[in-house]
């Protein structure tokens, strides 16, 4: 049984059964894109389940946040990356051993795999020894490594590898190739002859030129000639080769279970922090959020849509950040303003920030104070499906109803442009009804709508997406906290078309 976990304070914890499939809100919040980007390049560790399940207690989050803080130390991060690389090398060596057919080759690859494993463990132990580690997780790791690398099983393994390596490097031989005949015998190798040739031509070798070299393909397999030669060499060094076989049989189960689990789980952090490092810059900060399970006065400074940043950053397109906060009895953001102005993105940011915080991960933004939710529900517009005979309005209502039957006051609901398929009167009425339920439950909610009137309800905060004042075609993607003013956009367009009062007076000659 493994003795500690880098993901859970209690090593007996593991991801639950539900975590094996993607949560329903993932695609609405574009978290699926985020997770795909995070685990790209880390597929072998099967990390997705870890990203599907948010934690349920503040302490569980704190356990991971401590670890993330420790990982701010680049020496620790480098040590772990080199550990990860070592384990990967070990695995490729083992895979290689499995693929090959020649007996003595398989054994040698196995020996190399074990040697890499031992080195990797020892190096990580040494690297961690003098680091200042504050997290419970890494302290436990250090303790474990210390114990394990001094256990008699491990130390004797290391000694035997060294012994065997020395024996194998003493194997040298000479091939005499005459036509199609090869003769093999023991021999010391020497560079003397090459040096002599070089000396003879010394006068002609002064120019610095690109030296000729025939490139030979490097591949681990041996062809039958090499195999035959190796067999003849083995006949001349029987003790060495039988020692190699004995080592393999004795050490088949060398890999420690705790090490294996740590190797997988630590990549949860490495993968995520790798992504953060790629995105992070002066304008796109990340922070470790304050998470509370009692306070709903959430706040974020310079938060941004991580999925958008993943897509735009490589192209050098700047990503707009937004601030939000709720104070006192405020619970609901009602977002209005021009389309394509960043309304949906704002809603996603709110959801992403909360979910990522619930994983114990750093979140986009300069600072963040977030709420520990129990569940997230989203209601985004769907394509009308032909297989679905209900009307769109009916569908909307059914979906929202099912949300309200399962949510609790600790849930988060994100609603995007509901009731667009009906009249304004209906939409207003239904929207108000939905919001009233949310207000009554006192839960955190985002409501993206085109109806200014909905911003007037209690517990709501009005947020408006904006356009550049002098050119209404340029979206700023900034969503600001201010009363809804459906007019400014229309006025801006009028100015551009020169149909404002002043413009008309100017254009019409007197």
């Amino acid at each position, binding site marked *: 049984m493994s003795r500690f976990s880098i993901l859970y304070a209690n090593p007996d914890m593991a991801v639950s059964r539900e975590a094996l499939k993607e949560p329903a809100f993932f695609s609405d919040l574009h978290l699926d894109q985020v997770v795909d980007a995070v685990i790209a390049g880390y597929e072998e560790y099967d990390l997705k389940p870890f990203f599907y399940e948010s934690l349920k207690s503040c302490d569980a989050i704190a356990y991971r946040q401590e670890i993330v803080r420790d990982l701010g130390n680049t020496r620790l991060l480098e040590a772990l990356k080199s550990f990860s690389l070592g384990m990967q090398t070990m695995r490729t060596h083992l895979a*290689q051993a499995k693929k*090959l057919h020649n007996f*003595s*080759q398989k*054994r*040698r*690859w196995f020996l*190399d795999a074990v040697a890499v494993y031992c080195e990797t463990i020892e190096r990580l132990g040494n690297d961690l020894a003098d680091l200042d580690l504050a997290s419970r997780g890494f302290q436990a790791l250090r303790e474990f490594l210390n114990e394990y690398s001094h256990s008699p099983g491990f130390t004797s393994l290391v000694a035997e590898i060294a012994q065997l390596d020395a024996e*194998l*490097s003493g*194997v*040298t*031989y*000479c*091939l*005499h*190739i*005459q*036509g*199609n*005949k*090869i*003769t*093999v*015998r*023991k021999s*010391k*190798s*020497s560079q003397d*002859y*090459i040096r*002599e*040739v*070089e000396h*003879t*031509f010394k*006068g*002609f*070798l*002064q*120019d610095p*030129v*690109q*030296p*000729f*070299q*025939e490139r*030979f393909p490097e591949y*681990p397999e*041996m*062809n*039958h*000639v*090499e195999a035959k*030669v*190796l067999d*003849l*060499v083995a*006949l*001349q060094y029987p003790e060495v080769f039988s020692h190699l076989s004995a080592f393999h049989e004795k050490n088949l189960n060398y890999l420690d279970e705790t090490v294996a689990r740590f190797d997988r789980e630590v990549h949860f952090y490495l993968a995520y922090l790798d992504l953060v490092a790629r995105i992070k810059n002066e304008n796109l900060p990340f922070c470790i959020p304050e998470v509370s399970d009692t306070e709903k006065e959430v706040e974020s400074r310079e938060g941004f849509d991580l999925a958008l940043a993943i897509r735009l950053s490589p192209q050098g397109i700047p990503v707009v950040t937004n601030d939000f906060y709720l104070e006192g009895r405020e619970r609901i953001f009602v977002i209005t303003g021009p389309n394509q102005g960043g309304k949906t993105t704002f809603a996603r940011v709110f959801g992403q920030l909360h979910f990522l915080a619930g994983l114990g991960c750093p979140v986009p933004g300069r600072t963040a104070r977030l709420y520990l939710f129990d569940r997230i529900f989203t209601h985004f517009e769907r394509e009308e499906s032909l297989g679905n005979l209900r009307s769109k309005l009916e569908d909307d209502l059914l979906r929202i109803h099912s949300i309200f039957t399962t949510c609790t006051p600790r849930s988060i609901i994100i609603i995007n442009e509901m009731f667009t398929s009906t009249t304004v009167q209906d939409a207003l009425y239904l929207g108000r009804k939905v919001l009233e339920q949310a207000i009554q439950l006192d839960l955190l909610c985002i409501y993206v709508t085109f109806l200014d009137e909905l911003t007037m309800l209690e517990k709501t905060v009005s947020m408006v997406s904006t356009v550049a004042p002098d050119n209404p075609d340029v979206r700023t993607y900034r969503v600001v906290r201010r009363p809804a003013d459906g007019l400014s956009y229309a006025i801006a367009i009028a100015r551009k078309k020169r149909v404002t009062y002043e413009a008309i007076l100017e254009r019409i000659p007197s």
Partner: protein
Amino acid sequence: MKPHLLFRNRDFCPAWGMLPKYPQPTRWRDREYEEQWALLPHVLRMVTQDLELDILFKSMAQGDRYLYEVAKNVVLLSVPDTGTILYRQDILRDCIRNTKVVREIYGICDESIEGYFKEFTWYTGKSADSVRGTSIRALTLFIGKLVLLRKVAEDHGGTFESEGFREFFAMLKRELTDEYIVSLNAILGELSLPAGACITAELGKGNKGTNYTLQRCREIPPQTWIARVLSIDPSAQYSFTIADRDTTGFRALAEMRGKSLNPVSRILHQATDHIFRFFTSLKIELAFYLGCVHLREELMRLGEPVCFPVPREPGNRTLTSKGLYDACMALQKNQAIIGNDVNAEGKDLVLITGANRGGKSTFLRSVGLAQLLMQCGSCVPAESFSADVCRGVFTHFRREEDHEMRSGKLDEELTRMSEIIDHLSPDSMVLFNESFAATNEREGSEISRQIVCALLKKRVKIIFVTHLHEFSRGLFERNMGNASFLRAERKPDGERTFKIKEGEPLQTSFGKDLYHRIFCES
């Protein structure tokens, strides 16, 4: 081994597609003339075009493309160093005296290079083993040719006086002793591996053999069982053979051999390459001198004077010459033409004004040509010539009116000017011919004035032909000590002599004469 006939201590590096890069994909002559021309930097294409250097190169080449390319490279890569110029002048004097011997050496180079290309063709394998084989054959050929070269040195060395040739012949005798030739041939024999390859190896990654190293094959291992029983080292020696039809087996065997042959192939290839470069350099260097000899003969045939110029250190401004003429024009017209005398001691700026079609451009070209020829070490077309050595000669000539882009004319001129400025440094030389006249006189003058003043401030030597009166008059009235004003001569009766004499800029450019002649005589 380096010939060092163009520079005392270093190789000449042809810049524009002469020497094929390693490895040799094509020979220079496989390239088209246009392609070769496009390799020249644009500023040098302008110089070539403006001074009509093509005529010069053709005369030096006498129909040989190789000589043409060499002449172009050496002339355009002029050296700003009087020592090297004098070094080359001495060698050229030797070549004039011993043209026959020089042609013989040139022939040996040619044969070596052709022989080399027969061995290393585009279909020569790139494997270590095939490189070893071809290198051994090429080296055997080269060694033969080097021995031949040494013999020429022994037979004729005495008649050469220049430092360059004396050092070259001494080097051949010093580096190619008889013993050395014997040991070279011996090791080449050994490396053709008559008794097979002896290779040592170790166990590498995954027990695959590695560090394959070639050893000298001394003892051929005992063949018969009796010999095996009797052999001193009874420790096991095992053999196996590869079946005749086992092609993968043979490929595997070749790979092992190849790995061990890599180092010797590298050495052999490098040595071959070195000697190939030696012959190539020698051929290029001699080709240049042969070109100079051709040019001298051509001009003398026309009855024109030719002299060895006196170079001055950079910065010691002078432009002193007697009977300076435009060789290209003479070669093109195939007749002797009128030369000019000039004496501009200590002048940074020479400004030439005067009658249209009065020989200004021809004079300007003759100055540029003589400067270039002096700086490559050749004789120059004049009775006597002396000038300070410049760091680069550049030309800014007015281009023929291009109807399609008349509006962009000044734009184009200034673009070219800016391009030239990229290449300038103190003691460079710029020849201007009717530049910046694409706009009105006032603007053109102002542009010219600003450019000229800036260049003078940067100590650039300028020869400027202009009819921008405001510009030339303005400079004249400044009474600058470092400027010389020349004028195309016109006799009182209006007749042109095509002589350039000292004289202040005058208001009229004698266009009236031209007008009269064309309109009255027709």
